[in-house]
């Protein structure tokens, strides 16, 4: 048996890097310090593994890669999608493949924090690292986010409980505010809870901006909340030495989408005329931040990129995965490190069923159940090493813990790319 310390968890954007893993006979037998999701991830790493498959027949990795090459080299418009649960090294090759094919490529931000990206492009963003939050933040506001269910150790490691350089007493030195449309486990720990009517986040944030400018709204109640309560909240926010807003899908998926995020970023920018505030998106998949970064440095654009004219073009709503599928504009799809058949609206999934679908994933997924070709790979951070970006943009190197029977995503995508180059020579 061997014990490996300082292991990074490949689940959410927290990228907790303090786990201890025990391994016996090439199998993970225990996880220390991880959250319950992390434990499930590591302890079930060898269960429900995908098998190399071509049109329903079990085959070898080599044959499934060969069929993927056949499909992709004969099609006119391939959509490559996923990439948030794999390494930046994989993301780089996926972009090269999309460019060579003249296809489209999108990552899971599209149906997650895509609106955050749009808002950031409009307004810029005052942001910070989680280290700054741990060491400085004395007022923390979670808006439309339920970290105790989605990012279980966020409170513990970064935002609420840890003692920091200027936060000597941990939880006692911090005020927690939660804004959500329903009470959650995360809101139960809050000093102030704002229960907002569904779809009224934009109004509430903008009333806070109005009050900050010394003006009065015409109504006494906004989004189900008394304006008096919002004034009290603003006083707490202005009393911060260092405040941070963390926001989740409650802003990006609700009506208004990027307008909600723009309003929140604008509020933070205006608070900075009085005291220091930052804002940070609660990124879900462990390397979705890396996907946006790699897309941006390779193409100039963070997601929803098309190469059909030989150069990258960017247009969410046009080249985003759900829209390309909705309009039936792609004739093949390569899914890697994601499960869009479990994440997309049904009509997009229906159109995935109607085109040749290649799925690269360590495990059985709903997408693999409708795939023509399945290529299993080693999980980054367990069966292979790789680099990922934490939700605040800090790159961390993930370790290989055990030997996997499968090749890495990098190896598989490289083989597909070189195979297609050979065919199209």
């Amino acid at each position, binding site marked *: 048996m061997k014990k490996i310390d300082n292991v990074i968890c490949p*689940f959410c954007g927290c990228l907790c890097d303090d786990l201890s893993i025990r391994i016996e006979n090439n199998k993970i037998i225990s996880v220390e310090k991880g959250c*319950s*999701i992390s434990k*499930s*991830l590591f302890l*079930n*790493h060898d269960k*429900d593994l995908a098998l190399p498959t071509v049109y329903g027949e079990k085959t070898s990795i080599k044959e499934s890669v060969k069929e993927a090459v056949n499909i992709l080299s004969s099609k006119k418009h391939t959509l490559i999608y996923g990439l948030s649960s794999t390494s930046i090294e994989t993301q780089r090759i996926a972009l090269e493949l999309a460019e060579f094919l003249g296809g489209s490529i999108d990552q899971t931000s*599209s*149906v997650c924090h*895509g*609106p955050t990206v749009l808002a950031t492009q409009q307004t810029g963003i005052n942001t910070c690292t989680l280290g700054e939050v741990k060491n400085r933040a004395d007022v923390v506001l979670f808006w439309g986010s*339920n970290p*105790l*269910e*989605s990012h279980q150790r966020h409170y513990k490691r970064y935002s609420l409980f840890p003692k920091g350089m200027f936060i000597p007493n941990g939880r006692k030195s911090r005020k927690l505010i939660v804004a959500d*449309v*329903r*009470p959650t*486990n995360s809101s139960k720990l809050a000093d102030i809870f704002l*229960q907002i009517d*569904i*779809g009224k986040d934009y109004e509430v944030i903008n009333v806070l901006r109005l009050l900050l400018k010394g003006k009065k709204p015409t109504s006494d109640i906004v989004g189900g909340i008394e304006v008096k309560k919002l004034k009290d909240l603003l006083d707490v926010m202005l009393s911060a030495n260092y405040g941070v807003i963390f926001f989740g*899908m*409650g802003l*990006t*998926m*609700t*009506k208004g*989408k*990027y307008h909600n995020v723009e309003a929140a970023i604008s509020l933070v920018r205006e608070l900075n005329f009085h005291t220091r505030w930052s804002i940070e998106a609660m990124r*879900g998949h462990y390397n979705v931040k890396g996907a946006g970064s790699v897309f941006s440095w390779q193409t100039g654009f963070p*997601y*929803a990129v098309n190469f059909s004219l030989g150069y990258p073009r960017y247009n*969410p*709503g046009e080249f*985003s*995965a*759900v*829209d390309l*599928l*909705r309009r039936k504009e792609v004739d093949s799809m390569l899914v890697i490190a994601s*499960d869009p*058949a*479990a*994440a*997309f*609206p*049904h*009509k*997009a*999934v*229906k159109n995935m*069923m109607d085109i040749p679908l290649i799925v690269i994933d360590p*495990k*059985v*997924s*709903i997408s693999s*159940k*409708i795939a023509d070709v399945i290529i299993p790979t080693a999980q980054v951070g367990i069966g292979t090493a790789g680099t990922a970006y934490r939700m605040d943009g800090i790159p961390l190197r993930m370790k290989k813990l055990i030997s996997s029977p499968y090749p890495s995503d990098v190896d598989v995508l490289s083989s597909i790319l070189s195979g297609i180059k050979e065919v199209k020579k």
Partner: protein
Amino acid sequence: MKKFELITGRTLKQGIALHIGKTTESYQNAVAVAYLNKVDMDENFITEGKNILLSTDFGRVVVKALKDDIPKGMIFMPYGPWANLLISVNTHGTGMPDFKSLIAWFSPVDEEVWSWEKVLKEVKTL
């Protein structure tokens, strides 16, 4: 039929179950559910654990009803293939579908909770 507001989101049970396997009973038990306010359940003669047919303008699905302290008039479902049967594919030019604040309605049914196979079959017939 009375209309409710449906929102979808992450849950801890879903996060744990997806690593056990997306085609396992654990995943179905965690994801093929709808959380309702107690008063809404009582008013619609639904007991905890009763199966309901949940519908929107865009689709329908049979899931298990569970009690939660969410506001009256709200339905919460975990993200997943079951909830996605109810979601519109329209993104309003943003790339992002409306995963929250959809108008939905429900009624109790004796039909079993749909399996992932049944969900895919429903998708295919659309």
